[in-house]
């Protein structure tokens, strides 16, 4: 029980230590600690040097003074003066000896070995005369050879210097310790905060990955970097969800509407197997099967085209072309068909009409409209027996180009105009006509791809279908913030 608790705590801690925030903290901490240590070390070293310098200067001055006294008043006077000075309390040390090393005056009892033998500066241990049982101290001393063999030692106790040094060192250690503790705590805190939010995000994205696209990342409204990331990710999720919804709708439609022709295909083959008497029967059935599968392939191609057109303009090449020529071309392509059905196809595209877009797709979109019009046009609308007429018209309208197809057919009821552009939608009266129900979907998708629209209006009677396209092609999407 305790073990598993410890284990989870330890792994949670490990996760915390593994965060970027915490690692950054560690790096900064090391840098700052090193810097502080360097600073304090420099400070301590300099202080020590300064104190040493001061000692040497005063000791030098004192030796100069004392040797002058000796020159003026001889050894007797020197003994007297040193005796007097040695009695004063303080950190000053004095010792005057004969050349054999016997003490004449001073306050130093014990000295390091061989100190007196050499002139100059030494750091040594010593014990004061008035403190014979006391502890040994450190001192900086100078031995000076007086004329006639006497030796003079003047020095200063170093305790003060060492104490100061210790104080600085201790302060240094404490401040570094403090820096480390505070830094670690800060890092810990920041890392925990960040980790907490990232964990929340991870949790949400996990549920999203598991298939629930409705989940959204938590935001705080604080507009910091994590919040902005979350907001952007949420926007992305929004888009993905919309796309997935569309995708699902489409695939449902496809599954449903392709089933029908596939079933027909299968039935035909089955029927041929059951009732076929000779090779001719089989051949006929097979030819029918091929025709039907061609129809299926066409439907697939149309679906692919729609998907391509809907997926955006990035991959669709746009060129400048003459829309009037496109209208005439489509008119020419469909003229015999209309003629055969007793329909007059009138093309009204006199002047050149530059348009930026995908010629192929615009042509196809227009062809679909003409195709529909021919399919539904009534050959004999009025009592006067005039032939039915379809007008294909190209009109420039400011910065837009309008390609309109007007017929006198049954039209589309107002209520249905919204959804006839959906895939596979076929109105009741058109069920008997051939067609996949994809023509208007494709036309509408092409219009949107070009930044335009497909307008379906009443031609009183009949249908007026208009492709409204911006003359200069689709506007590029503004880069969002």
């Amino acid at each position, binding site marked *: 029980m305790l073990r598993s608790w410890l284990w989870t705590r330890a792994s949670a801690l490990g996760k915390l230590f593994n965060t970027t925030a915490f690692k950054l903290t560690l790096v900064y901490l090391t840098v700052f600690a090193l810097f502080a240590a360097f600073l304090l070390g420099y400070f301590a070293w300099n202080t020590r040097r300064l104190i040493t310098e001061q000692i040497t200067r005063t000791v030098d001055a004192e030796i100069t003074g004392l040797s002058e006294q000796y020159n003026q008043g001889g050894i007797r006077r020197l003994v007297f003066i040193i005796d007097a000075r040695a009695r004063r309390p303080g950190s000053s040390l004095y010792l005057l000896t004969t050349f054999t090393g016997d003490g004449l005056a001073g306050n130093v009892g014990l000295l390091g070995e061989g100190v007196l033998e050499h002139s100059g500066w030494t750091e040594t241990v010593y014990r004061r005369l008035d403190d014979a049982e006391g502890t040994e101290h450190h001192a900086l001393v100078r031995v000076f050879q007086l004329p006639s063999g006497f030796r003079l030692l003047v020095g200063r106790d170093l305790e003060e210097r060492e104490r100061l040094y210790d104080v600085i060192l201790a302060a240094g250690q404490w401040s570094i310790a403090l820096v480390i503790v505070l830094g670690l705590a800060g890092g810990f805190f920041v890392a925990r905060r960040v980790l907490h939010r990232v964990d929340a995000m991870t949790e949400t994205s996990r549920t999203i990955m598991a298939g629930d696209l409705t989940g959204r990342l938590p935001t705080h409204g604080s507009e910091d970097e994590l919040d902005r990331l979350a907001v952007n990710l949420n926007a992305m999720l929004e888009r993905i969800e919309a796309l997935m919804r569309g995708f699902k709708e489409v695939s449902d439609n496809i599954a449903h509407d392709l089933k029908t022709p596939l079933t027909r295909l299968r039935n035909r083959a089955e029927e041929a197997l059951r009732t076929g008497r000779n090779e001719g029967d089989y051949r006929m059935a097979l030819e029918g099967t091929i025709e039907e599968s061609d129809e299926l392939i066409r439907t697939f191609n149309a679906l692919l*085209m729609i998907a391509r057109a809907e997926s955006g303009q990035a991959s669709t090449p746009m060129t400048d072309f003459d829309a009037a020529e496109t209208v005439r071309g489509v008119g020419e392509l469909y003229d015999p068909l209309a003629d055969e059905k007793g329909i007059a196809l009138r093309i009204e595209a006199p002047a050149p009409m530059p348009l930026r877009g995908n010629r192929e797709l615009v042509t196809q979109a227009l062809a679909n409209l003409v195709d529909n019009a021919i399919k539904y046009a009534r050959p004999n609308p009025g009592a006067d027996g005039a032939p039915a007429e379809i007008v294909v018209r190209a009109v420039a309208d400011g910065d837009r180009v309008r390609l309109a197809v007007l017929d006198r057919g049954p039209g589309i009821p107002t209520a249905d105009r919204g959804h006839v552009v959906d895939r596979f939608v076929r109105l009741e009266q058109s069920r008997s006509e051939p067609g996949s129900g994809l023509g208007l979907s494709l036309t509408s998708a092409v219009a949107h791809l070009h930044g335009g629209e497909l307008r379906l209006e009443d031609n009183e009677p009949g249908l007026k279908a208009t492709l409204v396209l911006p003359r200069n092609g689709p506007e590029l999407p503004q880069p969002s913030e």
Partner: protein
Amino acid sequence: MRLLIVEDDRDAADYIARAFREVGHVADQAPDGEEGLAFALDRQYDVLIVDRMLPKRDGLSVIGELRAKGIETPVLILSALGQVDDRVKGLRAGGDDYLPKPYSFSELLARVEALARRRGGRGEETVYRVSDLELDRLSHQVTRGKDEIVLQPREFRLLEYLMKHAGQVVTRTMLLENVWDYHFDPQTNVIDVHISRLRSKIDKGFSQPLLHTIRGAGYMIRDK
């Protein structure tokens, strides 16, 4: 006719190869771009059928390499990317024809035969003849027997294309692409109406019809 099929989908490649053999052609198969390139460099083919997306070496790069080495064998590109600019890219890379998947074998066969024929060199003749039908490409005159036939410009081009490929099946899509320069699939078979108009002009009143409908495939002009 000797063909090379470079296609990584084994089933599809087997099916095409078998179908080509059944109609009397020789078909080799290569499963990836490297092998396809090696085959094409090593042997003489009449037409190469190259899938656009291949393992080891992209189809377009295979074609580019062949063209760079001066091999001008006609190439038909097969592709699942049936978009306008994909076709343009494929043709620019040195392909001669482009067929998006899914396709029917009759379409593929018709196009491959047209490609092989193009290489055969009928393209440069100035007068096409099928039986007693004559089309003069320079004077734009069409005659059947002793009668002159008056055709609209588009009808002339339609007949010209059919006669250029006399004896071969020409599909509706091929006609739409080559006569109208449209690369889409009209919902209604507008082409059929154009053909029947043309037929009424060249065959009506003659005992022997020349323009035949091949069921499930397309059309063909031939003398019997």
